[in-house]
């Protein structure tokens, strides 16, 4: 108790710094995965991708990041065991932030693919289970979270498979793909706007004071969907069949129409990524602020101040701008065979899955979800060649990241405990 009273302000400041550092890491690390398919399919230029990422990652973080942040902040740890020693929660969350942030740096340096979500969850479970006690962890919730890490890539894969098959049946396989593209793509654009709006409104906006019933949310979402559809129709009006380009590859003009669709999907993916991954940085921060501001009470009910999500969003944007442009440039060079029609199917499937997870408060790995979606398109025979070794490296990164994050967090936890007591 006294420790909190004594050091409360320092703790909050330190937590903000660590939280911002972690958010920066999330932005720098994950943006390639979120925007990769858009730049790689050449539907967006580098500049457009960065602009979209800045806008929509921030929007996703602020508007839809609340539920996942709540889970990271108080869903994993059982507060009753900490009632006597609230400072342990503060030390633990700071340790978790430090551990995850440093693990991200190390992994980036060595070129390992690492999930920011797995790092922070592993770190939190680590310090709670070892530093406090095994009962301090809501193992049921942790079980749900781990299950979601398996379910989300599979779900994204299934959605991507059917999305792409629908594109094939309605547009690519037909006698006149270009005309059908112009006819059906607006409906896909509507779908993008509708899904994102729907999940956000039904689940996410209580912290800015917007309470909508299910029907109201559905209604607003339909309207937003229609608006995006109108914008899309306007944008694709200018696209004409280019016979010289089509001679080389029959579908060139069709893919241009999909390019418009891909623009909207990229926005959706950035939004989804921001909504799910901001929590990795600011969830622990929110826990610390909650404890300190309640004067040492580890109550579950303390509301989360909106500035925390703002800080997280800003951190992601900072990381994205400072580091991401380098990464996205490489992405554009490497992926040569991805066309907008494929990119769209994979990205929308991933974005929908992530946004639904964000709405239900489940922290999932956006990277792994996107990998699952890409595999889904591959299974629909939509992609020329996929390197399945990547799936293997993902399993390895699972096995390594969780204990690594946990061990580092435990280390830092005991260090901080020693420093402050």
């Amino acid at each position, binding site marked *: 108790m006294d420790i909190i009273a004594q050091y409360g302000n320092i703790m909050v400041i330190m937590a903000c710094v660590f939280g911002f550092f972690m958010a920066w890491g999330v932005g720098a690390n994950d943006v*390639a995965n979120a925007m990769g398919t858009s730049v790689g399919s050449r539907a967006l230029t580098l500049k457009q991708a960065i602009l979209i990422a800045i806008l929509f990652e921030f929007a996703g973080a602020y508007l839809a990041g609340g539920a996942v942040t709540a889970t990271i902040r108080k869903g994993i740890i059982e507060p009753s065991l900490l009632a006597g020693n609230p400072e342990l929660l503060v030390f633990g969350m700071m340790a978790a932030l430090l551990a995850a942030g440093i693990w991200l740096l190390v992994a980036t340096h060595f070129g*390992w693919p690492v999930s920011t979500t797995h790092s922070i969850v592993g770190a939190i479970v680590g310090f709670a289970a070892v530093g406090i006690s095994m009962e301090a962890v809501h193992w049921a919730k942790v079980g749900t979270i781990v299950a979601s890490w398996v379910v989300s890539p599979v779900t994204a894969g299934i959605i991507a498979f059917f999305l792409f098959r629908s594109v094939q049946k309605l547009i690519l*396989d037909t006698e006149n793909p270009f005309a059908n593209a112009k006819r059906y793509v607006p409906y896909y654009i509507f779908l993008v706007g509708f899904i994102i709006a729907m999940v956000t409104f039904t689940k996410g906006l209580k912290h800015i004071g917007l309470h909508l019933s299910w029907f109201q949310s559905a209604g607003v979402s339909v309207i937003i969907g229609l608006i995006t559809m109108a914008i899309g129709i306007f944008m694709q009006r200018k696209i004409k069949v280019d016979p010289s380009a089509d001679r080389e590859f029959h579908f060139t003009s069709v893919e241009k129409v999909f390019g418009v669709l891909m623009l909207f999907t990229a926005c959706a993916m950035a939004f989804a990524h921001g909504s799910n991954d901001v929590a990795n940085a600011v969830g622990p921060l929110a826990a610390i602020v909650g404890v300190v501001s309640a004067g040492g009470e580890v109550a579950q009910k303390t509301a989360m101040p909106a500035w925390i999500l703002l800080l997280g969003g800003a951190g992601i944007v900072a990381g994205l701008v400072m580091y991401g442009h380098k990464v996205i440039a490489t992405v554009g060079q490497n*992926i040569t065979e991805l066309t907008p029609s494929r990119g769209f199917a994979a990205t929308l499937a991933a974005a929908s899955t992530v946004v639904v997870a964000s709405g239900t408060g489940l922290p999932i790995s956006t990277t792994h979800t996107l990998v699952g979606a*890409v595999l889904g398109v591959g299974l629909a025979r939509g992609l*020329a*060649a*996929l*390197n399945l070794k990547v799936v293997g490296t993902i399993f390895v990164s699972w096995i390594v990241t969780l204990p690594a994050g946990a061990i580092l967090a435990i280390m830092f936890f005991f260090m901080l405990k020693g420093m402050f007591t």
Partner: protein
Amino acid sequence: MVNSPILQMFARSPFKPMQEHIVKAQASAAELIPFFEAVIAHDWDAATACQHRIAELENEADDMKRDIRQRLPASLFLPVPRTDLLDLLRMQDKIANRAKDIAGLMLGRQMTVPESIQPELLNLLNTALMAIEQAVLALNELDELLNAGFRGHEVDIVERLITELDQLEHKADEHERQLRSSLFAVERELYPIDVMFLYQIIQWVGDLANRAQQVGNRLQLLLAR
């Protein structure tokens, strides 16, 4: 920065390199026309130059084939079976191999083609080259096939091309039969060993068309899923 799984997932597609490979094989076979004309005119310098070009093109095709094989590890996930793709590649390469064999043999023996069968031989060669061209056309549809997911409308287009390829091969067979009977009519007036090798050349030129047809067959296997 290679630690993004998304970056690492997308491997280089083998389809474009395979299209380039068969174009190289076709170029190698097409050189046979100036070669035959040089042989008929007994212009051995020109014939040697042609044979060198054919051998060079065939070598380049071999390099491309090796490169494609290296890029097809078992961990690669393809929309078509890997073995079918490798079979197709092997059949494409055999076209270039046969062209090199023909040129090598005719140059080595400084072959004299009897006047009575010269036009028919050139006719057979042209038909064989048309068959190869048809195979190249069918293979050029590979990236469209990929875009269509190896289904539907595009498959019908390719099947039509393959049917035409079969017909061209039948025509070549016909020409080959006629050519052999023409040679049979005059063989007693010729040196026996030369005649044997002439029959060999006729068979080999017919082989060019056969191999082109087999390329079509392998392509059909890719579609039949």
